[in-house]
């Protein structure tokens, strides 16, 4: 940072302009332009396999949902046979179960515990290595990765989450070179959700269930009428080039209408909802609400919600050195505002109580994020509800502070 910025008096600071509007053009013009074409294609299940092969042939390492340890988690995929075909999930506060579906859907479930941030914003990353040579010490920064990652089956809420992390890690004063290198090269194959999970509320956060931007290719899985096909929308040059390589046909009007109906059905069957238009004012004017004390009696401050949250970006650093004291490394790892260490300054932690730490997480996610980055930090994916060991429900906490029950709340 140059001194020019610093010489501005604190009284003269204005909120920095938002670098891009997450709603309108978070994906770059070239991808938006493609959408205007509106060319929809249909591919079969075999066509989808051809798409995956074409992606791999272009040098991408493909990741997608897989079935592991009784959960759907993202991992390397070689073929579409690695996808959780015929599986779905059942989610609720503190509860996640896999169930068999009656059909062979490849994407017939909601989001699992992991998000794509585990690839773009690694849980653990060496930042640099330092070596001592006498009095001198040399520092070698970790090279930025050159991998080309392809994410298969990215939900609309997750695209929004990636855009939110873009804003924090690339679109601010300083750029995280590791995130940027991976993000710029990443290929995103979105999937419009065919069903809403019981902890989903992306519709309330205007983040889904339809991917409207931020993807190279978007799929809608169509299973109605005995046929198993995917409606495909290519929205970037890369996406169009891939589509051109695989067997496809123009989508029929009926297929397009069916896809729209699937998305509409998903949007109208969200398991949770949360009024989101006034959360900054609501929460920041209720910082001493008794509900914070109440939720603190249930919150274990385990940090699960922050680990599964696709937008939580906080990290800490750790220094390791060899026994001889000749070599040292700086590692960055995910951190959580739920730990005592997070706010520690000499003399103690600023946020020592569970109440203050839950309040920090929720007010940051839903309120101060808007001041900082121009959008909410919540995408309504519901992971923090499902993976909370005691089932704390962020939508319920908001309602409690709002002082109304579920039935009284405005829809979406």
């Amino acid at each position, binding site marked *: 940072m140059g001194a020019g910025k610093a010489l501005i008096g604190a009284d003269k600071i204005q909120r920095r302009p938002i670098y891009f509007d997450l709603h309108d053009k978070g994906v770059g013009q070239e991808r938006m332009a493609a959408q205007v074409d509106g060319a929809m294609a249909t591919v079969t299940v075999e066509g989808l396999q051809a798409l995956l092969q074409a992606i791999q042939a272009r040098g991408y390492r493909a990741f997608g949902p897989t079935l592991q340890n009784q959960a759907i988690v993202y991992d390397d995929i070689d073929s579409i046979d690695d996808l959780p075909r015929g599986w779905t999930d059942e989610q609720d506060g503190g509860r996640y179960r896999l169930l068999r579906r009656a059909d062979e859907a490849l994407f017939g479930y909601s989001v699992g515990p992991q998000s794509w941030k585990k690839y773009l914003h690694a849980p653990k990353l060496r930042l640099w290595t330092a070596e001592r040579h006498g009095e001198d010490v040399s520092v070698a920064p970790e090279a930025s990765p050159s991998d080309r990652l392809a994410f298969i089956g990215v939900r609309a809420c997750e695209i929004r989450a990636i855009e939110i992390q873009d804003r924090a890690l690339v679109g601010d004063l300083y750029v995280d070179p590791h995130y940027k290198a991976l993000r710029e090269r990443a290929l995103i194959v979105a999937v419009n959700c065919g069903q809403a999970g019981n902890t989903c509320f992306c519709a309330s956060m205007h983040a889904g269930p339809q991917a409207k931007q931020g993807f190279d290719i978007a799929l809608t899985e169509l299973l109605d009428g005995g046929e198993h096909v995917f409606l495909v929308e290519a929205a970037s040059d890369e996406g169009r080039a891939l589509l051109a390589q695989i067997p496809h046909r123009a989508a029929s009007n009926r297929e397009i209408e069916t896809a729209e109906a699937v998305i509409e059905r998903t949007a109208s069957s969200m398991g949770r909802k949360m009024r989101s238009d006034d959360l900054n004012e609501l929460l920041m004017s209720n910082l001493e609400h008794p509900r914070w004390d109440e939720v603190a009696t249930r919150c274990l401050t385990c940090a699960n919600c922050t680990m599964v949250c696709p937008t939580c*970006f906080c990290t800490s650093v750790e220094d390791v050195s060899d026994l001889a004291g000749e070599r040292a490394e700086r590692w960055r790892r995910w951190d959580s505002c739920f730990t005592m260490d997070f706010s520690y300054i000499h003399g103690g932690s600023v946020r020592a109580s569970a109440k203050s730490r839950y309040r920090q997480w929720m007010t940051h996610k839903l309120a101060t994020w808007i001041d900082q980055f121009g959008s909410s930090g919540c995408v309504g994916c519901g992971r923090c509800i499902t993976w909370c060991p005691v089932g704390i429900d962020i939508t319920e906490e908001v309602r409690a502070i709002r002082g109304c029950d579920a039935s009284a709340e405005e829809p979406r």
Partner: protein
Amino acid sequence: MPQTLKACTSPPDPMAPRMTPVTRFIRESEDVFTLDLAPERATPFAPGQFNMLYAFGVGEIPISISGDSQAPERLTHTIRAVGPVSAALGRLKAGGRVGLRGPFGVGWPVDAYKGFDVVLIAGGIGLAPLRPVIYWLLRHRAAYGRIGVLYGARAPDDLIFRSELEAWRRTPDFQLRVAVERAGPDWTGDVGYVTPLLSKLRFDPRDAVAMICGPEVMIRATALALEDAGVADSRIFVSMERNMKCAIGHCGHCQFGPLFVCKDGPVHSYDRVRNLLAYREL
């Protein structure tokens, strides 16, 4: 990735420190010391900005620059040894190496308040981030009105910058009051907190700017006293301290309500933080 995601001035690897030689070590008090660093390339800094200092193999901490912003070829940091990193920095001698990143953050608005009376209030090590302001004011003495400095410490032995305190005391048109909480028989100065000393300073509250650095409880008490004296809250500036791991707005640790202390601060105008300071554990 859209072009608009590009940030303005980010270095290619903002987390990598530059190893920088220590040119001087000064013992200020039992647990406070000053390190002068000679950066390879002098980077301009503003009074109130901070650097991240890395002790090899131990860790990295944010430290305000305590030297003269008009001589940036020498980077001076005054540090109290309170944890493992500050203790390791305290074991350095001239010729040693410190990892350096910075300067970071928003400093004191010295330029914006030319023509004003200036009141500086420091508690303990809080004098260090304000010393660049004193240097600035003394270099540009004619551009400012009356100058008053209040400095509080626990005990006479804890006072830092002692020879400079003596020099400032002898400086014409420069009001300095030093108070200690626990005085010994040799102490002839003020005893107690700095807040009551505000009434001993000559300044025009309607035309004054105040800058405070010290423990948060002192910040709140002195800011309140300044307001009572008639200084507008938008002309009271406070330097905040929070846990920081990155200094570039990415690690999230320094958040204070909507503010990132590392990039929105560490210096904030009191009208922006007063409401936040009112909440415990925010």
